[in-house]
């Protein structure tokens, strides 16, 4: 019973973070049908934002807000630097430019800060534990669950009920038609990148809150998680991304419980094998989403 509770909380907290990561990637993919390889660097940038504000004396929440803002700005910047000039020309070109942009950001961090891990300021709450139902739960796991579920609900509301959300969903379904009906394309795309950056910023707080420090390569694992979660869930569907995030967390946590120590180091390989099996069964992902794939 206690193991079950522990397991559920592990899956939920990891899954919440994974779902946010996947959502941030898929919001851009849904509209542009283009993958943002620099997504992981948004997480890194927010982490370094926190590091640079270390010792500034600001309350942590203000620092966190500024870090998220940095991620949002970098997200919009990615759109201008890597996407806008080539997005109408070729899919491969955008993959390359975003990969190149990600390399630039990473190496800039290497060059101007340091290749070594840097500690980021975190509130005490992140290192406390809560006793509940006979088990000890790190408070940061509960924060992750609450934050991710809250954000997912807010995001669902935004997409279903507001004009902006409806316009974005229209753009994701039939971009050309949406433009003809007066949806401003550039504004929608920039907004998608801003939302993507916002998710990356929040993920950064939660993710780096787990690790406690930031390195130039810190964005790789979240990027990979987002990639795999969206491919399992279905690249075109927002629900799919959330489902994929939780499913991947379930697989990972289950493997953590099941595998012995020497097999555990190969966990990524096991996870990926499962992903291949899922793709064999459903190449489109679990949830198909809107059928069309028109780009600008």
């Amino acid at each position, binding site marked *: 019973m206690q193991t079950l509770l522990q397991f559920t909380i592990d899956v939920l907290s990891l899954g919440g973070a994974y779902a946010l990561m996947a959502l941030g990637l898929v919001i851009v993919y849904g509209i542009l049908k283009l993958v943002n390889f620099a997504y992981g660097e948004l997480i890194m940038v927010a982490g370094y934002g926190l590091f640079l504000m270390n010792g500034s004396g600001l309350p942590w929440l203000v620092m966190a807000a500024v870090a998220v803002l940095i991620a949002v700005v970098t997200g919009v910047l990615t759109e201008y630097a890597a996407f806008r000039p080539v997005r109408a020309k070729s899919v*491969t*070109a955008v993959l390359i430019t975003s990969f*190149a942009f990600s390399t630039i950001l990473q190496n800039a961090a290497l060059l101007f800060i340091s*290749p070594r891990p840097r500690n980021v300021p975190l509130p005490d709450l992140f290192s406390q534990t809560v006793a509940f139902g006979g088990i000890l739960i790190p408070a940061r796991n509960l924060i992750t669950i609450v934050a991710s579920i809250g954000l997912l609900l807010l995001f669902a509301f935004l997409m279903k009920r507001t004009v902006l959300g409806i316009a974005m969903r229209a753009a994701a379904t039939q971009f050309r038609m949406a433009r003809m009906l007066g949806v401003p394309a550039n504004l929608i795309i920039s907004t998608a990148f801003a939302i993507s950056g916002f998710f990356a910023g929040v993920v950064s707080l939660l993710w780096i809150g787990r690790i406690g420090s930031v390195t130039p390569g810190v964005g790789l694992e979240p990027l*990979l998680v987002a990639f795999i979660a969206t491919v399992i869930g279905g690249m075109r569907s927002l629900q799919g991304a959330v489902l994929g995030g939780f499913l991947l967390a379930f697989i990972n946590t289950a493997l953590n419980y099941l595998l012995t120590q020497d097999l555990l180091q190969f966990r990524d390989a096991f996870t990926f094998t499962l992903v291949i099996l899922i793709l064999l069964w459903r190449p489109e992902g679990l949830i198909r989403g809107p059928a069309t794939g028109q780009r600008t």
Partner: protein
Amino acid sequence: MKPGNILTLVILLGLVALLVLVPQLVGSRVVERIATALAISLVLVVGLQTFTGNSGILSFAHVGFMGIGAYASAVLTIPVQMRGMALPDLYGVLAQIQVTPLVGIALGGVVAALVAALVAYPLMRLSDAPAVITSFALLVVIYTVLQHWSAVTNGPRTLFGLPKATTLPLTAAIASVVIVVALAFKESRTGLLLRASRDDERAAAALGAGIPALRWRAFILSALIAGIGGALWGHFVTSFSPKAFYLKETFVILGMLVIGGMNTVTGAVIGAFLISLLFEGLRALETALNASGVFANQVVGVTEIVLALAMMAVMFLQPGGLFAATEIGPLILRRFTRRAPP
């Protein structure tokens, strides 16, 4: 064979021959090392072109197969008396087998091709972004395995003791063969169908092209070449760790292909030449900067930043790369046979 293709072959092989001749004339060891590294890059980039260029799907896993080839050859060629030190936990049967480096290089390619054949079949059904993403994940998986399978790879630590067997003439010869194979594959039935699927997947499928099987063949060929390239590289540097086969190397190889133009073998060759030379220049600059002590910290990563900017510039100005669609042979012929524009 069409005259254009012959001309392409002559020019590209001429470039490789030049690569062997120049160090001979200059007579410098450093130049020879640079030329050898360039020839290895040629093998890798042209190998990547056989899959990515013809199918239109970016493959990030290529460098992973390079790693598999390097490690396979290493396990088979490290002298038996040194095995105890280099790979103490190697399995009984493997520990006793020793082959010559040439056989090791060939087997490195075969092992990489076998792994590719096994894991890639389901992935070849994917197109566009999901295909790219899964190839990226495949790279991570190969890296994870290389890093943790201590018995065979010595874990994340450096593996040493490979016999030094990669010479410039050998590498140049293999690079020439690879260029011929890549051009032949491109013009073959499989290559033609695959290129049709690249340009319009639905139309090609409707005309009866079995796209997953076509891609699968190209992927295996590409992995075979990557494995050989990796083994060559292994016998060139003689000691390496799994870190060598990860994102940094991927970025360089991909940069070469993309800047040159991934749809043509010419592009792959020219890209490898241009970026290798640019890299050598930048690395020298970086070393000089570090030695002069102008900056307080070590200057790292400038090379990558410049390459990234170059990649972005080429993508903005000419999304298909320098040689976007036509090989150099037909390009030259077209210029000199003045025909009235259609």
